[in-house]
């Protein structure tokens, strides 16, 4: 029999499967597994952290408490802020660690809760502040993070995220980058929840100590007017959008029937800071 050469119409060396379908199946599977691990471990962290004995937290705090040199002369502004903070924390039993406030020169209007019950306020935030109530709200918000032990939760989650991406993928992988951004987005969602908790805590504390909640939303309103990025960015951010936070706070004020009285004007010492 003579061999007749001919062109083959279909290709035995290439699978007929659709690559795009395969792509979605694979990426869905991997993301599913990673997110499941992440969520399970996150839930465990959420379960364990609130049950940690206060003595354990106190020990952690001690490690950090003296990070800020005591010798540093406290500025008038810091003393003023500490007075506001002391008013907020007057109910804390005397045996427990007390909150300390520090001012750091920085062009970002922000405040942070650092381990060891240290609250750091950026100078720009004070530049923007118009009333004592507004500052009290910010300080109470940071206190809310400590009450909820967010710094410990965050620590747990971050370790989890990092170990997952390291263990599964190593670092020289295009998918690592993508997974990292997705996981950080997921983490941002949890973090947004924590911010809402801290906001709520701050509002109640403010009402408790000042008898009204004037100035509670002032700071967010200022940030909202200066917002540079579109709101969609907040989907990926660790904090909810300012609009959202203002709305939630206003709803809470209405719900609880909190009063809004006159604001206490800010002490001029914070404006006279030499930077």
């Amino acid at each position, binding site marked *: 029999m003579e061999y007749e050469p001919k062109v083959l119409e279909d290709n035995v060396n290439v*699978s007929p499967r659709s*690559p795009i379908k395969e792509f979605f199946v694979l990426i869905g599977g991997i993301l599913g597994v990673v997110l499941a691990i992440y969520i399970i471990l996150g839930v465990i962290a959420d379960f364990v952290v609130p049950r940690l004995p206060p003595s354990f937290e106190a020990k952690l705090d001690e490690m950090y408490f003296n990070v800020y040199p005591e010798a540093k002369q406290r500025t008038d502004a810091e003393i003023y802020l500490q007075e506001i903070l002391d008013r907020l924390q007057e109910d804390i039993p005397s045996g427990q660690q007390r909150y300390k406030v*520090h001012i*750091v020169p920085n062009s970002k209007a922000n405040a942070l809760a650092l381990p060891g019950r240290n609250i750091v306020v950026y100078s720009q935030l004070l530049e923007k502040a118009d009333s004592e109530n507004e500052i009290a709200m910010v300080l109470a918000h940071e206190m809310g993070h400590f009450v909820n032990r967010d710094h410990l939760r965050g620590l747990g989650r971050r370790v989890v995220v990092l170990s997952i991406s390291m263990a*599964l993928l190593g670092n020289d992988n*295009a998918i690592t980058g993508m997974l990292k951004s997705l996981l950080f987005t997921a983490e*941002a969602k949890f973090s947004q929840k924590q911010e809402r908790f801290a906001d709520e805590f701050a509002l109640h504390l403010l009402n408790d100590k000042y008898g009204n909640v004037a100035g509670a939303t002032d700071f967010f309103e200022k940030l909202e007017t200066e917002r540079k990025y579109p709101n969609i960015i907040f989907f*990926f951010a660790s904090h909810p959008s300012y609009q959202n936070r203002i709305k939630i706070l206003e709803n809470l004020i209405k719900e609880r029937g909190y009063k809004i009285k006159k604001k206490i004007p800010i002490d001029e010492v914070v404006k006279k800071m030499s930077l």
Partner: protein
Amino acid sequence: MLMEQQLRQNKEGIMDISNFINLITFVFLVALGYFAGTIAEKNHYKSIREREKKFLNMPAVTIRKLEDESKIESTNFVSGSVVVSVDYFKRILAALRNIMGGEVISYETLLDRGRREAVLRMKESAFGADMIVNMRLETSTISGKANRKAVGTVEVIAYGTAIKMKR
């Protein structure tokens, strides 16, 4: 310590936005890779099929010796090589396969195209010959970064002995 915390916090602010940008870039690259790669592959296969039809009557075989060498008029070494790469989409698909295991279909078309193209180029360089014997195919990976495992670019070379028969 304080400085570190400050720097970290500032970095986190940027992280939010850079996360967003990273994700968008990734999706964009995958989509671009998919569309550009699909079009390029389609066109390449079309050209391969047309040229294969043209060279249907020039066999390229792996046999080493002809039974009757007295009929050979002349011989010549011929080769054809090609360097091809996968698109970003297929690279990601293969990387995902690396985790789960299984058939890496995204590299199948790459190698299939490479081999067929190399054979075609070899035949094109054997212009006027009647057949090619002792044909061999070799594949090697070409990668930009030496210590990266990523296959992405391959070189395929086809070579053999072109034979012109006496008339």
